């Protein structure tokens, strides 16, 4: 395999200049890496914000550098919350697993040498950068223009995501290498593909909502009437459902976006578990169907957020059923994970730990989701939402982050030709794992405690007495968890430069095509010959071969030869 210099090397590549090799390169590996850098930057920015918010909640009087006005102005705090949410949801959870890892590994895993539309891909990346700059600027300018800028930035992000989704779906449909039939696709590719289709649908809805909202703000139309408009109308004319329209369009997108963030993670985790358990995916076809199911149901559950806002009385029932029916594909996935792990000789390295952590978080977050799919609590939660905050941070935020970290530990050797440090990684995992449970589980309790107005008198007072200490506990846990991430940053940066070199192509003994090329992959991905695929992506535990797996690209003759030479 030609081991020439790769476009993937983000740092100083000797020839070609920084701009053309990294900034304006249409190479899918470079673009994928750039998306990951962007997500890394955003995740630390977003984390710093959550820390600020928590400090402010606990000690409102504390003077914060640069943010001295935070204490006096609720606007600033709202802006902080908005920015934290937008950065984390859009630029980290939506972008990193799909645009980041997807761009880098989708073509490599299907045997293509490029995405279907490389220039569109580059454009989408720079649109994402523009949207990040826009979102961040909103914090620094006055509230009124800031909101307009926020909407424009979100619209730009939508356009970028649409371009990405188009690229992903076309690449998967048309650019698969020889022999890469649909059943042979790795589950990561399935997840990226289904996710791209889902993204094509929902991001255009959010884009339409943004267009209406912008026209309201800039051209004084009344798609989403504000109070002043409502007040000017004749009595009785005010529809009670006016802001509901925005809520509908928004939740149509936002609920589905949870699955946009989760889908690639589900694929990644299944992949990791199979590789490190050295076993094929249990009921692989059913898992593919389940991933499709998550996509379809995820698209349909938008109404679940409308319980408290006056919809047709029958529709909550329908949506509640739909939300609960998401349990079916989720159960299939969980069963499959346990099916793989059953009797497996699990390799407990950091990537696998993060995948197992994901399962744990997915299960506990999913359980609290069942409570929320029940209509009553969701209505109550609209009043005080510590429960909801705990629920979606656990299942969407943290679980997705765990799978991103798992994928990073898994693919780091392929991307940079070096390994992340395992010991540091394990310490980081355990600290984070304990930390997030300490943060978000008490948040569930707080949410439940807020609904204890059924109780009276002394019992209520007793509950009120423990709310304060629980808040303090959460804040301390957040501080520790955030500082534990410093460990990851050190590990990441140190391993980039000094990490243990990986000389072999396939350090994890995995089967998919990206492991058949050198690390980091050559600029044209597969060197002189196009790869040919002969089998499915999870042939582990195969008897009669030298090692316990058969890579997808190995020809039957080569296996026979290897078998003969082995014996």
């Amino acid at each position, binding site marked *: 395999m030609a081991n020439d210099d790769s476009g993937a090397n983000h740092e100083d590549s000797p020839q070609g200049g920084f701009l053309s090799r990294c900034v304006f*390169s*249409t*190479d899918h590996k470079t673009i994928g890496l750039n998306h990951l850098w962007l997500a890394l930057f955003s995740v630390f920015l977003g984390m710093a914000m959550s820390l600020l918010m928590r400090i402010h909640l606990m000690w409102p009087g504390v003077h914060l550098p640069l943010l001295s006005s935070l204490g006096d102005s609720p606007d600033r705090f709202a802006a902080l919350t908005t920015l934290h949410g937008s950065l984390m949801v859009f630029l980290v959870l939506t972008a990193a697993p799909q645009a980041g890892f997807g761009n880098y590994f989708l073509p490599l895993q299907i045997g*293509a*040498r*490029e995405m*279907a*539309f*490389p*220039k*569109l891909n580059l454009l989408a990346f720079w649109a994402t950068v523009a949207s990040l700059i826009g979102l961040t600027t909103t914090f620094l300018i006055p509230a009124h223009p800031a909101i307009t800028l926020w909407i424009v930035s979100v619209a730009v992000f939508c356009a970028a995501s649409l371009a990405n*989704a*188009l690229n992903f*779906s*076309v*690449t998967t*449909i*048309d*650019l*698969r290498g*020889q*022999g*890469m*039939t649909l059943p042979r696709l790795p589950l990561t590719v399935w997840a990226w593909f289904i996710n791209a*289709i889902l993204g*094509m*649908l*929902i991001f*255009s*809805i959010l*884009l*339409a*909502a943004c*267009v*209406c909202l912008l*026209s309201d703000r800039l*051209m*004084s*139309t*009344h*798609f989403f009437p504000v109070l002043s408009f409502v007040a000017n*109308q*004749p009595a*009785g*004319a005010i*529809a009670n*459902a*006016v802001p*509901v*329209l925005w809520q*509908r*369009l928004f939740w*149509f997108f936002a609920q589905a976006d949870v699955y946009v963030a989760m889908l690639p993670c589900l694929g990644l985790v299944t992949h990791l578990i199979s590789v490190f358990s050295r076993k094929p995916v249990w009921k692989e076809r059913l898992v593919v169907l389940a991933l499709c199911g998550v996509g379809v149901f995820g698209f349909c559950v938008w109404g679940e957020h409308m319980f408290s806002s006056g919809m047709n009385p029958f529709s909550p029932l329908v949506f509640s059923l739909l939300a609960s029916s998401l349990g079916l594909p989720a159960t299939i996935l969980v069963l499959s994970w346990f099916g793989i792990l059953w009797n497996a000789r699990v390799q407990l390295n950091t990537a696998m730990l993060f995948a197992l952590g994901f399962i744990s978080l997915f299960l506990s977050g999913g359980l609290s989701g069942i409570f929320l799919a029940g209509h009553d609590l969701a209505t109550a939660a609209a009043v005080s939402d510590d429960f909801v905050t705990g629920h979606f941070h656990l299942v969407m935020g943290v679980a997705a982050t765990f799978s991103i970290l798992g994928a990073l530990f898994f693919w780091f050797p392929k991307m940079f030709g070096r390994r992340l440090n395992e010991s540091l990684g394990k310490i980081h995992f355990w600290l984070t794992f304990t930390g997030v449970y300490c943060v978000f589980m008490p948040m569930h309790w707080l949410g439940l405690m807020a609904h204890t107005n059924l109780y009276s008198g002394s019992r209520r007072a007793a509950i009120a007495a423990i709310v304060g200490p629980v808040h303090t506990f959460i804040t301390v846990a957040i501080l520790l968890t955030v500082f534990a991430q410093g460990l990851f940053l050190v590990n990441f940066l140190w391993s980039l430069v000094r990490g243990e070199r990986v000389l072999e192509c396939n350090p994890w003994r995995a089967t998919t095509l990206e492991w058949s090329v050198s690390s980091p992959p050559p600029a*044209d991905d597969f060197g002189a*010959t*196009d790869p*040919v695929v*002969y089998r499915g992506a999870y042939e582990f535990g195969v008897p009669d071969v030298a090692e316990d797996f058969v890579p997808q690209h190995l*020809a*039957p003759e080569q296996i026979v030869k290897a078998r003969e030479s082995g014996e």
Partner: protein
Amino acid sequence: MPGTTSTPDIEIIVEDIGGGGGGLPPSFGGGDDGDGGDDGDRRRDWSASPKRYSTAIAIGLVSILMFFMALASAFIVLRRSSGVWITVHLPFVVWPNTCVLLASSFTLEAARRRLFLADLRGFRKFWLFTTVLGFLFVAGQLIAWRQLVAQGIYIASNQASSFFYIFTGAHAVHLLGGVFALLYVLAHKFRETGVSRSMAAEIASYYWHFMDGLWVFLLALLYLGK
């Protein structure tokens, strides 16, 4: 269709073990058609199947449809829930204008038939005619806007007028994209390999007919919803 992918003959390829790239004909060097990627010669002997363009347009159209469906559902929800709905009478010019757009679909098909018969002159004539009809339609929409403005109905006047401007505006922007695609097919020098002119014309025609149908749908929505 030229350049279809190797998907159907996968099982045959599996037999063909020796040559990795044997199944695919050596095709164009990339970079001649907008998105081919032109990073020197490193992908000289590999290029993505031209079929990706028709796949992209099919998926892209679904996405555009979703965009307009979101607007349409907003229209229906507001129409039903609003007690202050003021009827906006559609300007007369939209009717002849609709005929112009419908006619353009027929001239487009006529052009494609000429191309199929290898009559390049006829193709250019009808294709150009279609483009002119497209421009005429956009101009007609502008006239419709001016007629409304003359009546004192602006985008912010009431919800019905907002929807009229938003629907027509968004559709016109998408249609202008189509007009540029038509001009591209007309002016671009297509090479022997890669995307052929007939394929480009076919892809542009999908988009154009879709825009045509979309306009009829939007017009029906505005007309019935008033």
